Structures are given as C-alpha cells and as structure tokens.
C-alpha cells in the first residue's frame, strides 16, 4: 500500500492552507484565499476518499517521538490510525467541510477579514482531522483542544462588532454590544471546554496509571489481558465522559453551545452542528473497548444523552432566533447520539452522527441563506412566507426538516429509529424520553419551518434567492440528507445493514434481537411521533399561535441554566479571586510588618545609645559584672 497517500497529508494540507493564509494574507487578494482554503480541504477529501476506497486492515502510521514515557516502556510517538470509524469521520469532516468552505466563499464574500476566516476554517479542519485520526489519547487531545481553539477564534470572529467603525452612534452602540456578547460567547465556549478537558486529562492519567500506556491500539490490546480494578475502569470512563460532555455541549456543560451561534453561520454549520460537537460521541465510540467493560459508566452516558436530548428539545420550543432553534436542536440530537453510544449501540450512534451531519449542516446553511437574504435578520417572528422569494432554499429546507423529523425515506428516520430500537431494548424510560423528544423535535422544527417559510412575510426589505455558489452545497447536502438513510436499511425492511457491517469491522456489534413485529411497532411509533409533531405545528400555525411556543419563558431562557451557573459558579469564583488578592497583598503587608518589627529593636538600641558617656559606662561595667557573676556562680556551682 506504499502507493497510497500518507495519512499525515490529511491534516497537513489544511494546516498548510492555514499557515499560508495567516502568514502571507497579502498574496491572496479578493476571494483567492477562499478558493485556496477550499482547494486544500478538497484535496484532503480526495485523500480521504482514496484511503477509504482501498482500505484493508486498520492502518497505523507513526512519525516521531513526542511525549516522554507515555507508551509502553517507550516515548509516545505522533501517529495516525485509520480504521473504519476514523475513515468515516475523515470523510464527513473533509466532505461536509469542503461543501461549507464552498458555501462560505459566497457567504463571507463581503467580510473585511475574508482571508483570515478561511485560514481559521482550514485550521479547524486540520485539528478535527488530527482528532479523529489520532492513534493515542494525547494526540487526540491535541485535536480536541485545537478544535476548541478554532471554535474560540471563529465564535469570536466578530470580536469588535460587525460595524465598529460606523459613524452613526446608534449603529456603533449596537455593534459594541454585539462585540461584547460575541467575545463573551467565545470565552465561555473555551472555558467550558476546558472544564471538560480537565476531565479528559484525568481520564488519561488514570488510564496510564492502570495500563501504563496512552496509545489507543496498545490500550485496546492490554484491556483484554490486564487485570485492573473494575472501579478504576468505571472511573476512567466517567472522566472521559466529562470530556465528551464538555465538547459536545451535553448536560451539564451545555450552555456554551447555543451562545456559540454568535459566530458566522457557516461556522455554526461546520463546527457547532456537523463535526466538532460530535467529537464527544466519537470519543466514546473510539473508547468502546473501555465502555464495554464499564456498564455503570455507560449507563451514565446514556442518561446524560437522554436528559440532554430532552433539555435541548424543551429549550428549542420557544426560541425566536432562527439559529438558536437549530442550536438547541443540535444539543438535543447530540443527546440522541450519546444515548445510543451509552447503550453500546455504537453503530446507531455513529450513523445518526452521519445523517445529522448532513441534515443539520443543511438546515444551518439554509438558515444562513435566509439571514443573508434578510440582511442579517435572525428573528423568525420577522420572517414568513419566504418560499415565494427563495424557492430553492425552501425546497432544501423541507428536505432537512423532514429528515430531522424522522419522516420515512429521509435519513433521520433510519438513524433515529435504530437508536430508539436500541433504547427500547435496554431501558424503557430512556426509550420513552427518546420518543417524546422525537415528537418535540418534529414540533419545533415544524414551528421553525412554518414561521420562516409559510404564512405572510412579516419583515421589511426585499429577500432575494441565494446565488449559485450557495446553491451547490445546499443541493448536495439536501440530496445526502434525503438518501443517506439507505446506507443502513434495517433487515426487517429487507436491508442489509451495510453501514453496521462497515462500522462493525472497527467496533464489534451487539446484534440486537427484537422480534420483527416489535420492530414494526417501534417504527410506527417513531413515525407517528414525527407526524404528530409536524401536525401539531401545522395546526398551531393555522391558529397563528406559533410565534410564542409552549413553555413560554422557561423554554425561552433554556430552563434558566445560564442564570444558575452565573450565580452558583461564576460570581462566587470572582468573589473568591478578589478575596485571595486582598489576602495576598495582606500576607505581603504582614511580612513587611514582621520586617518593620524586626527593626523595632533597632529603635530600642538607638534609644539605648543615649549619648551619655556614663550610661555607656553603666552598660559596659554592668556587662562585665554580669559576666564575672556568671563565672562566680559557675565556679561556686562546680566547687560545691
């Protein structure tokens, strides 16, 4: 297989793009920079495809020694690992990434920092590829924090507001406010990720303590043989879960993800929907050999997923920002994936990851097109009836909505169905949650659809259809969102589980044995949930009662989680910082005080130095007398 392009090319190509665009932006006038970046990702995609097409046994390519003593009795090397799982992820990242780059060329066309935007996007893609291709946890961590950094940069891309130089005071003020909220969102994302990362790191430390290596292949072998305390593995898996939760915006570290919508829409599509946020799922799937040994930890994963799915769905009900709705839906869909991998239905989880990548990216890009068409208007209550103005975008959005709502033949249906089946098989409560969420999902997506596309146009300004360059990715994604489901037709529908078999070569499958009848039933329920949800939305739309969804403020403020954190964590820690600072200056002063007191005797001595010669004589002769007395006493003592 020497003829094959080396794996390191995958991250290297976009990284080169990043470096060039960062260091020599002047070389790329106009949109050339964007085309370069897109080309780099495209090249990476081609590499990924080539590697995928002639893929045999997992490929392991190591480069140079990197971290001390972190492999078995050796230094850990930088190395890449390509098996079915990582190959699939690589395809998603480069493929979807390529499309979104393409989209951005048009979308960011007018932005003054056009070139830098693409540099960052390339950087993200590179880091994401490192994440999925890493052959060791530390290297995965590099990508892990790298994508966090990229997301920080891109969320804060408009760190000074979009028109900070505006002359008009009002516009300027608005822009300044936007600047602050953008910056805060970026910082919040990074810090919350850091919390997760600490968990990830502790997990690695513990794994090293248990198995003496952090290289994933080595671990996978040793896990079979080595005898270690069950509690140890459970704990390690929980630590890893914390990391995954942080990255994937699951409960309790979920609040940064909705805020992250402050970034440009392509960013939301690529990073905060399709790829980065799914890293947590990938981490769990990648560590399947650990989670298989840790039933309790897996249950935790499942429940975290279930609850987050519910939380996201509930919060999405009454949002009015076109992107916020999609964001919460992302949270909720990620919950599904966690639910699946937590139940060891890795294939189902990854499959949903795949389909979700398609339809959610699609929806975001469509939303982006809308926002553009309405000149940065994001409030769904000021939209409506857009299907007349932008038919193509409308069409693809329909595909996206149907897909996410789980309507048959659209991809979402298959992946969600697999997850629900797995849930039903193992825990009824989780199944019910999943079903309920399916219904809610259908509803809020329906709400989204009707508010944006149907009814009368409530805004002002003249919407215009997106340009061709935007249409291409939308079209491709719509096609994928529609058809991807057929990759994995379940047996009872006469399918061959092509996808399961493929993934199964990397992750041993737990073939679930549910009677066909039950499967039909489950499917019917799932479909019903979707249909009812959409119907409910439609009726509400008819009543014109969609503008404010159910649950009112509770949902709008996403269950007040933010407020809770501010009061319970942020404020106290700030207060503590202040206190410590005072204390520190205090200890400082205290030490000075000690010093001053130390020189206090000095004052005494200067008093003693009274200037009177007889006083001096007194101290002299008394000193003498004292010494003699001491001697006398001693001699007497020794004498007697």
């Amino acid at each position, binding site marked *: 297989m020497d003829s094959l392009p080396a794996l390191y090319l995958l991250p290297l190509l976009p990284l080169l793009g990043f470096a060039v665009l960062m260091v020599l932006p002047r070389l790329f006038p106009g949109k050339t920079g964007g085309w370069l970046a897109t080309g780099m990702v495209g090249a990476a995609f081609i590499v990924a495809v080539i590697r995928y097409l002639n893929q045999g046994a997992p490929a392991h390519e190591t480069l140079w020694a*990197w971290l001390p003593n972190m492999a078995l009795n050796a230094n850990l090397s930088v190395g890449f690992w390509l098996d079915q799982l990582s190959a699939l992820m690589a395809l998603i990242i480069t493929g979807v990434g390529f499309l979104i780059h393409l989209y951005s060329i048009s979308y960011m066309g007018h932005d003054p920092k056009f070139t830098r935007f693409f540099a960052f996007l390339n950087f993200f893609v590179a880091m994401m590829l490192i994440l999925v291709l890493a052959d060791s946890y*530390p290297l995965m961590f590099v990508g892990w924090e790298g994508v966090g950094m990229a997301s920080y940069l891109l969320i*804060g891309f408009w760190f*000074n507001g979009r028109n900070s130089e505006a002359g008009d005071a009002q516009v300027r003020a608005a822009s300044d406010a936007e600047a602050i909220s953008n*910056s805060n969102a970026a910082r919040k994302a*990074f810090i919350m990720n850091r919390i997760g990362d600490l968990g990830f790191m*502790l997990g690695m*430390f513990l794994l090293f303590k248990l198995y003496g290596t952090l290289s994933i292949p080595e671990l996978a072998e040793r896990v079979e043989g080595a005898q270690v305390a069950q509690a140890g593995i459970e704990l390690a898996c929980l630590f890893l879960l914390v990391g995954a939760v942080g990255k994937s915006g699951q409960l309790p570290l979920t609040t940064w993800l909705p805020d992250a919508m402050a970034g440009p829409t392509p960013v939301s599509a690529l990073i905060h929907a399709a790829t980065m946020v799914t890293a947590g799922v990938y981490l769990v799937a990648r560590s399947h050999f650990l989670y298989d040994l840790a039933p309790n930890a897996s249950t935790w994963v499942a429940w975290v997923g279930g609850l987050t799915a519910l939380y996201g769905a509930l919060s999405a009900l009454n949002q009015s920002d076109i992107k916020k709705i999609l964001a919460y839906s992302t949270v909720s869909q990620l919950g599904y994936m966690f639910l699946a991998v937590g139940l060891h239905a890795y294939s189902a989880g990854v499959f949903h990851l795949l389909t979700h990548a398609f339809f959610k990216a699609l929806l975001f890009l469509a939303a982006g097109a809308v926002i553009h068409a309405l000149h940065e208007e994001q409030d769904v209550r000021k939209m409506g009836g857009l299907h007349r103005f932008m038919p193509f975008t409308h069409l693809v959005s329909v595909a996206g909505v149907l897909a996410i709502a789980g309507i048959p033949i659209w991809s979402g249906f298959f992946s969600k169905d697999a997850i629900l089946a797995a849930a039903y098989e193992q825990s009824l409560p989780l199944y019910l949650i999943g079903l309920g969420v399916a219904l809610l999902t259908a509803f809020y997506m329906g709400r989204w659809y009707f508010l944006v596309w149907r009814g009368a146009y409530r805004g002002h300004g003249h919407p215009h259809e997106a340009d061709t360059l935007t249409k291409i990715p939308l079209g491709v994604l719509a096609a994928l969102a529609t058809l991807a489901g057929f990759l994995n037709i379940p047996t009872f529908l006469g399918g061959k589980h092509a996808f399961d078999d493929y993934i199964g070569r990397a992750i041993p499958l737990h073939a679930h044995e549910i009677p066909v009848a039950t499967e039909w039933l489950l499917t019917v329920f799932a479909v019903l949930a979707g249909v009812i949800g959409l119907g409910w939305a439609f009726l509400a739309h008819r009543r014109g009662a969609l503008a404010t969804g159910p649950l009112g403020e509770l949902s709008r403020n996403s269950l007040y989680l933010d407020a809770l954190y501010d009061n319970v964590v942020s404020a106290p820690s700030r207060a503590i910082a202040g206190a410590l600072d005072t204390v520190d200056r205090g200890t400082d002063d205290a030490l000075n005080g000690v010093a001053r007191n130390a020189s206090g005797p000095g004052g005494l001595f200067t008093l003693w130095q009274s200037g009177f010669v007889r006083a001096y004589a007194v101290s002299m002769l008394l000193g003498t007398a004292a010494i003699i007395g001491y001697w006398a006493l001693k001699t007497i003592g020794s004498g007697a």
Partner: protein
Amino acid sequence: MNSFTDWLPTLMIFLPLAGSLLLLVTPKTFRDEVAGFIAALTLGAGLAIWRGGGSELFRWDWIPPLGITYSVQLGGVSLALALVTALMSFIAILYAARRIPNPGPMLSLILAMETGLIGIFAAQDLMLFYVFFEDALIPALLMLAMYGKNGRMAALVKFAAYTLFGSLLMLVSIIGVRYLGGSPSFAMTDLKQHLVTGSAQTWLYLGFLTAMAVKLPMWPLHAWLPDFHEQNHDSGVPDVMGTLYKVGGYGIFTFAIPLFPDASLELRPILMGLAAFTALYAAWIAFRQTDWKRLLAYAGLSHMGFVALGVFSLNETAVIGAMYLLAFQNLYTGALFLSVGMLQERIGSLDTRVGGVMTQAGALGGLTMALWFASIAVPGLAGFIGEFSILLGAYQVSPWLTFIAGITTIAAAAYALTAFQHTFWQARPAGSVTVRDLVHTEWLILGIPLAILVLFGVYSTPALNLMQPAVRAVLSALGGN
C-alpha cells in the same frame, strides 16, 4: 583534556560579562550592535555545545584550601536552560535596543545577568552555584534601581531581602552538606560520594529549600514577585531577565534531589501540596489583576507551581515535564512581557481594561493571543508537553493534589482569555488614539519565541533526547522509584 570544546561552557558563561564590560567603553553609536553581537555569539556557543552533544565536566581547583572548585558542565537539562537563557537575553537586547531611550546601562546589565544565569546552570560545584546565584542578583537589582518606577525601593528591598534570606540559609546548609558529609570538596562529584544521612539531611534540605522556594517562587515565599514585576521598567525587558532568574526548580532538580534523596522522599507529600496550592492560588489571584505585569507575574507564579509539583513528585515523566516547562515558560512568559511592553508603548498604559486594540493592531493581538495559548498549555505548543507530563506524572504519585493543580488549567484559561478579551477584543473606546501595528524588529521579538514554541510543541524529540537521559541519571540516585 583541555580541547576547545571543554572551554566552550566557560566561554559561554563569561562572554556576556566581557561584553557588558566592553559596552562601558563602546561609543554610543554602536552599543546596540555590539550588545546584540555578543548575545548572538553566546547563543552560538551554546548551539555549538549542543551540536557536540553537551560538554564534558570541566574542573579546575579554584580555592584548593577550601575545596571550592570551578566545575562547569553544560549538557542535558542545564544545556537546554542555558540555550533558552541565551536566546531570551538576545531577544531582550533586541527589544531594549529599540525601546529604551538610553539603553547603554540596560544592555550591559542584561549581559552581566546572562553570565550569572548561564553560570547557575553550568555550575557543578555547590559554592560556584551559590556564587553565580548571587551574582545574577546584582544586575537584577540595578535594573530595577535605574529603570524602575516610583515604588521601586520597596520592591527592591523586598526582592533582595527574600532572596538573601533564602540563599544565606542555603549557604549554611551548603557548609553543612560538606562538613557533616565529610566530602573533600564542594564539587557535586565528591558530594554525591559523601551524602549526609539521617535527620541532619532533612534539616539541610530545608535550608536549601528555603532559597529555592524563594527563587521558584513558591507560596508563601512569593510576595516579592508581583511587586518586582510591577515596579520594573514598562518595556518588560527586565521582567524577561527576572523570569529567567526563576531557577529554583532547576536548583532542586540538580542539587537537592541527588544530595538529599531521603529527605526529598520524606517531604514529598507536603511539598507537592504546597506546589499544587501555589499553582491554583496564583492562577485564581491572576483572575483579579488589572495590571498586565501583575497578571503575568501571577501567571508565571502559577507555572512555577506546576514546575515545583513536577520536580517534587520525583516521578520521571513529571520531572521531565517540569524541566520542559521550566525551559519553555521562559519563552512565552518573556515574550508576553515584551508584548505587554509594546502594548504600553502604544496606548501608554498597562491596564487590562482598554478595549479593541486588536482592531487596529492585528498582528500584535494575534501574536499575543498565540503566546497566551502557549501559556495556558494549549496542545501543539511547547507549554502543553511540559504541563501534561507534569500532571500525568504527578497523578501517578498523588491523584488528589494533581486534581487541585489540574483545576488551574481552567482558571488559567479564565484569567488569560478575560484579560486578553478586555484589552484586545471588544470595541475600541470612541476617540481613543489609533494603535500602530508591529514594526520591523518587533515581528522577530514576538515571532521567534512563538516559532520555537510551536516547533518544540510539535517536534519535541530533540529536547526530549536532551533532557530524558539527564533526568534518568538524577532520579537513579533515588534508587528506582
């Protein structure tokens, strides 16, 4: 024996001193060039040593009747640190030359201090180490005295008093190490043959530790640090040297562990606890600072907490990490001090609350941000390798303390990004002066360290090959573990 390569370390040590004396007689017009040239030459000497794979031990009986020898060796960890020192001194000179109005004295002080610092790393004799340890102090004090701000006298006295308080106790325990152990000389080679044992060792270790804890610095002997940085010249040049002067971790690693193996094992939990506490405590305080230099001071303190944690844990991985971090934190902390100097030059204040600088000075902002990412140990930059190895190694010894230290990584992100955001991001206050972006040498001054940080964050093999054997050798004194 006395081939040229054996003289290289000596050359590297005393070349800067010679240079600083030379500067006193150089005409103003090419002072900068001479200084830069000397510094570059020193760096070159260091690289030459590196190419030769480290130098042999060079020993000359300095004061035979006292058994004080001039034994120097640059290899492994010491060579790495010496190289970093030479590099950062060079960069400091580059910046001082363009930033400080009449840089003559500053330049020669930088060079004089460089000699002391490289000497510290090269010394293989306890007394020689002590001598260099104190030598570096004098230029540091003079920089503060000649270029400092109004409160400098207090800061000066505090700095000197803390340092000497520690180092004099160290002097006593150095004497003790030799006489209670009955070694013929102060050279490490001899001292290692005659270890002090029993409780005496613990006492001597404590004496030695005081000095190192001041120079690490470590809570509660850190109080001199913030004032020292706050009062130093705005350009941040003296702060770079001050950062390089944080040699406590190295001292403990090279001298304390081999000489007091039992004591260091005995005190390990306490010391690790102190270290972890220092890291978190400093990071948390940094969150509250509004003066960039104070912030950086606490940030550095926090890093030193990590270094201490690694060294005290006596775990090989952790110690390697500690040395790695110790070496490379000089790069980013130093460069950050300089970037702060550039910021001050442009907006005339060190406040962390001026907004939107990056809008106009994109390069300054970008490079500063990158350096900050290095400082908060984002993977792919050299800081990460150090911090990660430290934590991983320390975890093997004491999970809970490591957890405490680990929280620091979150706090670090908090303070770094907050301060950065308030200064460089957000909106520029209306009507404030327009900020010039980086110009000629400033690019190098921030770019070179960053480039090296990236290089050694990704391709760490050379540095590892340099440090790993040295660390193994030292830790072997502990008899396994």
